[in-house]
């Protein structure tokens, strides 16, 4: 446990000393959301109708941008070879990195989401569902995205490839994330969607660190 905390602490220290990366993801998220009123017109009803979907898609793409760097730094400078020799299982080291990604990239996105929802005129009934769905859904993005980042280590055009691999796998998160907000707006209970999102998160947290560790291990060979 202390070793896991040490690995997590290292990732967080690295992220704090390089705050630009998390800030870039949030900037991208805000900009991408801002483009939609220009694209579809400033009509309030239309924007309110598509707000949940737009915010989810923008958050997904913003997370993709930052995922590319998740393992690449340690892979390129050779630290991963040392980390792989540590007594801590590689899956936990990889899991610490995914957790750090969620803490440093996804939490700022979750914080920015209600603000952007205001700009898109989202009905007040949808805010709780939106933030709760984001809080339960974004860890899955970090986990599944981490597997993609591990698979594309050292690949040509790794960043683009990462999105191609991971986005189809994350469609369920998008469906239930945006679905929760739609249900809340329609006056239904959102429990069902949130529980499915939580189930996906739990399944992903059991399987993804393991798959990503296997991918990293064969990249280090």
């Amino acid at each position, binding site marked *: 446990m202390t070793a896991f905390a040490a690995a997590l602490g290292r990732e967080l220290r690295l992220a704090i000393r390089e705050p630009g990366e998390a800030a870039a993801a949030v900037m991208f998220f805000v900009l991408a959301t801002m483009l939609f009123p220009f694209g579809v017109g400033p009509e309030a009803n239309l924007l309110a109708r598509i707000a949940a979907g737009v915010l989810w898609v923008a958050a997904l793409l913003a997370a993709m941008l930052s995922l590319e760097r998740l393992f690449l730094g340690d892979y390129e400078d050779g630290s991963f070879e040392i980390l792989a020799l540590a007594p801590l299982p590689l899956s936990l080291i990889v899991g610490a990195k995914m957790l750090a990604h969620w803490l440093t990239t996804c939490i700022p996105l979750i914080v920015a989401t209600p603000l952007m929802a205001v700009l898109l005129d989202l009905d007040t009934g949808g805010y709780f569902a939106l933030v709760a769905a984001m809080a339960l859904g974004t860890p899955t993005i970090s986990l599944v995205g981490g597997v993609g980042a591990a698979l594309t280590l050292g690949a040509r055009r790794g960043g683009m490839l990462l999105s191609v691999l991971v986005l189809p796998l994350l469609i369920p998160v998008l469906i239930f994330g945006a679905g929760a907000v739609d249900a809340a707006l329609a006056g239904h209970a959102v429990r069902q969607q949130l529980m499915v999102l939580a189930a996906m998160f739990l399944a992903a947290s059991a399987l993804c660190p393991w798959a990503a560790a296997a991918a990293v291990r064969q990249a280090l*060979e």
Partner: protein
Amino acid sequence: MSGLHRFASPARFLRLADRIQPWTAWTAAILIGAGLAVGFGFSPPDYQQGDTVRIMYVHVPSAWMALFCYAAMAVCAAAGLIWRHPLAHVIAHGAAPIGACFTIVCLATGMLWGKPMWGRWWAWDARLTSVLILLFLYLGYIALANAFDNTTRGDRSSAILALVGAVNLPVIKFSVDWWNTLHQPASVTRIGAPAIHSSMLTPLLLMAAGFMCLFATLLFIRVRAALLERRLRALRHARAHAPPAGGMDTGTTLS
């Protein structure tokens, strides 16, 4: 299981493939020919859909094959990861583009069927959408398999991806079904009546068996080409690193 491992030797596989391939090729040609003849010539038109129902004889078997190829790919990927048989990776890579083509045929025929039936080329129907996602899973796999200079890395990375995709496919299918019923209350009549008459089932099964033989034939061709390519690369590599014949003499005269 140990009996199967004998076929992991590429040379043995190639010998076997050479012997089987003419049979699968001819069977595929005969079955697909017969299926098309019966399907387009002798089976009755549907009482609701008219002659457009004949698209089904290509559409449904290609949908089955699209799923079958992904399953075959995932099983080979797992075998390649567990027993480290290079041949399993070669077969998985060989199956992927064939599966992607079946998926494209399935989507294209689905769109051709949708235009007269639904009045538009594309409906965000649950099945169409899941097949479209399946196509992207195939394309991602192919892109990842070819993204590395080192063949082993491409083999293993894409194998892990195939397994992740196989685990995720049911989740995607379930989510898309759920999403579709939420956003689109059944506005389209679905194909797939509970019972299908034997006059339609015969050409369907003929085509399905023919597509399976076609898959086997194409897979043999692709695996043979890939194995030869790998051997060629290994030979080139060996030659580039071997000391040149008589090279010592030129070396001394130059120095």
